[in-house]
């Protein structure tokens, strides 16, 4: 059985009592004094801050950096920069926009910048996978480890809602809003650092139009639940009737339409005494569910 060990977590979550972008964290500024919010998009900064925290104490060698990956998921990617750039072009004319702002508009800017800033030269992957982005990034790394593409790296998600679209985000989440920020996990072989937990399985599926489970995948569904005693997943998602009845349930509280779905459940699992769990996330607009099975030794 393939297991992907997760050794450390780095977080840069925005919100009351959490990170503010008024000033970058000292550790990040010390590492990258030339990086300024004036030129770099917020999603890249958030990913960079989380990456520095996740890598603290890992002392990567030059050799390790050669195959050190970045797998970063998001729902909205760098939409904020797209709106800024296009808005400038609409107001001032396309020949007046700052060309230095253009690279901020590509969705792989956060993942690529983490790779460039930290000199991580393994496969660099950006997934825009809606509300299942965080779990899909973990699942991608686990499946890529099985296939030989991934060996070690930073895996997680970043989310940034553009300021002008906050009203729409409030409406679509029933007033809860989206969790913004970044959460990156240090995954794979990293010397003697003990793992926080291990990824043991991954399954993701877009349901059919009538919300039916595609029966051809039944052989992937059942092994997911073997031995599982705890489920971290939003309430009211499709397939509830298929979840095993004898698992305890932790339900997250909204914001699941965006990319950090599953982070809260993961943290709740880490502070619990549970040994084996399934984390779930749901993208309602896409009828897509993703599950990652994790365990503590």
């Amino acid at each position, binding site marked *: 059985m393939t297991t992907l060990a997760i050794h450390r977590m780095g977080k840069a979550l925005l919100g009351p009592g959490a990170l503010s972008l008024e000033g970058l964290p000292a550790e990040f500024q010390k590492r990258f004094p030339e990086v300024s919010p004036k030129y770099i998009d917020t999603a890249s900064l958030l990913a960079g801050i989380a990456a520095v925290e996740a890598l603290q104490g890992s002392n990567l060698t030059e050799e390790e950096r050669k195959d050190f990956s*970045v797998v970063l998921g998001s*729902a*909205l*990617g760098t*939409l904020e920069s*797209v*709106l800024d750039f*296009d*808005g400038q*072009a*609409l*107001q001032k004319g*396309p*020949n007046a*926009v*700052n*060309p230095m702002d*253009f*690279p901020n*508009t*590509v*969705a*792989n*800017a956060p*993942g*690529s*910048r983490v*790779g*460039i800033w930290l*000199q*991580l*030269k393994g*496969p*660099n*992957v*950006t*997934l*825009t*996978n*809606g509300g299942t*982005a965080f779990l899909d990034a973990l699942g*991608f790394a686990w*499946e890529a480890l*099985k*296939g*030989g*593409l991934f060996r070690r790296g930073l895996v997680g998600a970043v989310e940034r809602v553009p300021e*002008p679209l906050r009203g*729409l985000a409030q409406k*679509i989440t029933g007033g809860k809003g989206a969790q913004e920020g970044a959460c990156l996990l240090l995954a794979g072989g990293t010397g003697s650092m003990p793992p926080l937990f291990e990824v043991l399985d991954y399954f*993701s*599926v*877009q349901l059919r*139009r009538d919300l*039916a489970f*595609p029966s*051809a995948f039944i052989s992937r569904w059942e092994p997911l639940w073997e031995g599982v005693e705890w489920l971290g997943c939003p309430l009211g998602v499709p397939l509830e009737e298929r979840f095993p009845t004898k698992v305890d349930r932790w339900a997250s509280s909204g914001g699941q*339409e965006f990319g950090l779905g599953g982070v809260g459940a993961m943290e709740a699992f880490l502070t619990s005494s549970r040994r084996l769990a399934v984390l779930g996330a749901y993208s309602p*607009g*896409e009828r897509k569910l993703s599950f990652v099975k994790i365990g503590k030794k």
Partner: protein
Amino acid sequence: MKRTVVTGLGVLCPLGDGVEKTWQAMVEGKVGTGPLTLLDPALYRVKIGGEIKDRSRIEAFEKAHPGKYEAASVLSILACEEALALARLTPKDLGELRIGCFLGTTMGEVQLAERLSEASVRGTLEGMDPSALERVQGSRMAHSVMDHFEWGGPTMVFCNACASGNYAIGWGLEQIRQGNLEVALCGGVDVFSRVAFAGFNRLLSLTPDKCRPFSANRKGLVVSEGAGILLLEEEGRAKARGAHIYCEVKGYGLGMDAHHMTSPHPEGTGAYESMGRALKDAGLSPSEVGFISAHGTGTPANDKTESIAIQKLFGTDRKVPVNSIKSMIGHTMGAASAIEAAMSCLSLDKGTLLPTMNWESRDAECVADCVPNQARPFQGKVAISNSFAFGGNTSCLVMVK
């Protein structure tokens, strides 16, 4: 480990709607880029682009499904529709199988993003349907394909800029060979974007007239739009139903320059690594490669560094043919690698190398044989398709006849 073959292809690009039309036009060396009509050319320094001119299928689809899917989703669906038809499969056939859809894109549903920015500038965002915030997400493209054909299964959308299509095809290969799927629809899609056009325009990356990959007097790229889809199928299944097999997808490799957001590494390190990883994944050596479908954007920096990487891996003595179809259709962004992969499949299948058009004079720092200006017969059995991107992300596929 299951073997993975290509049994269907779908392409929409400035040379036409359809694989065969596109192939034939490329064999004849036609150039599909030209004066910009989707944007007001007076606003821009450069006034040419690559637009899908034959929009009859797009218009018919939008008329039949008004407002249901965004523009990039529509291209994705139409390219998949052609891939299914060429594979002689129906949506119903696949509905009972383990099928998935993996797409790559640079800008995703950018035309909706542009409408959002217009509304933001005008102060009318409050009146917009909140579902726009879901519909604008890149993930919507793969969702739309599965939704339209009434399938259920895994989806992923890779946003690794212009290397994305190969990421998606590589992931489809991975899923089939691990036995997770029987069929995967994979590729890349990008619609014409004023954000991308304005951005490349301001970076001075655009040629004012035509794209001349590997030519000493090359001046830059042409921003374009398109869609490319490969229908990947587990070999045993394809053979059992008597499908036409274009080629086998044998390996893929991803790399990272870790150098700069917009400039390739001067030594082409990511390109070199990803080609090497793809060949290793395929269990092949550089000496077995018959041709390379280059990233070949026509910018001075890309073509030089790609040549350095190719010569480092393949040696300077061996003149492997290297072509760039971007000379004919421009740079279709996230679709580029998928369209190039589709054309590489056909090159292997039909025994013809497509030309690099507009080539005028040799650049000593570039590859020696770029199949200049004329298609030619080809007997090789192994192709590499390169794709590189902003951020230094690189991806390569290995296909075998």
